[in-house]
């Protein structure tokens, strides 16, 4: 069976749809240039369940839930659900944690880097350059035989763990809905101000998440892979999808009056260029070593990849560390220990990249 989404037209269509809906989500209530940000939203989820106590970034983001569940449904429909696990899970967890720490030094995952660019935030250029450099370093390791090893087939129930957890999160959200003016509903935390308080209506967020999850699973959309394939194989397939995302988001932003070109005063961003760059070098390297951008890891975890699920939890726990330890940046600039964390993260990546090599 021919998979339309695997064609060039397919991946470009998916990029366009993501770009359009990301810009619209901002219009519908999500924070500025943050229609969809996998890192930010997983960080908000970590806050919603109280893993960190940064009051301004606590919200159970339905987009993330939708990504996983949409990918799962698409994988079953496409006969592509493949429960598998066992490819160095603990390493993937650590890579996820440091990917998140790097992303929070920049203030966004690759998806948001492109959305920031599409909204005129020129700081994003340094983040994207950092992403490219990080991915490039990753390709050097791959050329020298770096491998996390093989995964093994496993039970269907193992592949369903992540979708079930996300379904559980959704149920919690319905049981303990946001109450106007209250920071807590049942066991869930809700931001009263800051980015965590800005969100599109639940059902809209969930619907967009499901749609994006489904089409991204079919197309293998990946913002890290876009650059990796370009550098490693001179292939433009995935890159054309990312380009489509930026163009679509930019056009819709223009229509909605959401473009503000400049460096200063950008929403949920700082203009310390060197750390915007370095944070994304770390994140890009982690994504490359783990084989997918944070979005892709969610879609993989929806199609049964237990190792990708472990990476996602690494990111969520990494977000908790980032806020508890003062590693995350804020619009004022990098956190008190963010710079140290970037260097530690890079050292950890070097250790992983250099020691995990199959013999030729």
């Amino acid at each position, binding site marked *: 069976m021919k998979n339309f989404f695997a064609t060039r037209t397919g991946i470009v269509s998916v990029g366009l749809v993501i770009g359009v809906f990301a810009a619209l989500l901002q219009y519908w209530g999500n924070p500025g240039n943050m229609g969809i940000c996998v890192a930010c939203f997983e960080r908000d989820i970590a806050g919603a369940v109280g893993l960190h106590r940064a009051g301004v970034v606590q919200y159970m983001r339905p987009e993330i839930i939708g990504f996983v569940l949409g990918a799962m449904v698409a994988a079953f429909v496409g006969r592509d659900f*493949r429960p598998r696990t066992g490819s160095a899970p603990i390493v993937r967890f650590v890579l996820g944690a440091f990917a998140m720490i790097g992303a929070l030094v920049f203030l966004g995952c690759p998806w948001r880097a492109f959305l920031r660019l599409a909204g005129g935030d020129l700081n994003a250029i340094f983040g994207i350059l950092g992403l490219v450099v990080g991915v490039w370093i990753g390709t050097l390791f791959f050329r020298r035989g770096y491998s996390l*090893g093989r995964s093994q087939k496993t039970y269907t129930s193992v592949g369903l763990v992540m979708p079930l957890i996300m379904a559980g999160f959704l149920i919690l959200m319905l049981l303990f809905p946001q109450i106007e003016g209250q920071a807590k509903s049942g066991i869930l935390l809700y931001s009263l101000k800051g980015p965590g308080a800005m969100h599109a209506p639940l059902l809209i967020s969930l619907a967009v998440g499901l749609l994006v999850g489904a089409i991204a699973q079919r197309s293998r959309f990946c913002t890290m892979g876009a650059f990796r394939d370009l550098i490693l194989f001179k292939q433009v397939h995935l890159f054309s999808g990312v380009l489509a995302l930026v163009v679509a988001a930019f056009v819709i932003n223009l229509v909605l009056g959401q473009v503000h070109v400049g460096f200063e005063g950008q929403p949920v961003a700082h203009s310390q260029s060197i750390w915007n760059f370095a944070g994304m070098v770390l994140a890009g390297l982690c994504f490359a070593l783990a084989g997918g951008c944070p979005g892709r890891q969610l879609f993989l975890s929806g199609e049964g990849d237990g190792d990708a699920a472990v990476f996602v939890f690494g990111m969520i726990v990494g977000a908790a560390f980032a806020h508890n330890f003062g590693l995350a940046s804020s619009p004022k600039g990098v956190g008190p220990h963010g710079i140290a964390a970037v260097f530690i993260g890079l050292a950890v990546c070097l250790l992983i990249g250099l020691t995990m090599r199959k013999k030729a």
Partner: protein
Amino acid sequence: MSELIDARGLSCPQPVLDTLTKIESMGSGKLEVLVDTEAARENVSRAVQGKGWRVDSIAEDGDEYRLELIKE
């Protein structure tokens, strides 16, 4: 005689990287690649076609695919 790459269980970009490295060293001939995800099947097929090879056949065996790649 055809050569074989077992890329089952490997995550991106290894199935493609291993395949491209192999066909570069071979120049031409016949190569079989084993993969076990749809994504790897699509990615390997797409990558080799860009290098002048063609996918002669794809045999499906349960959750696995055996791709036969050929360049005369």
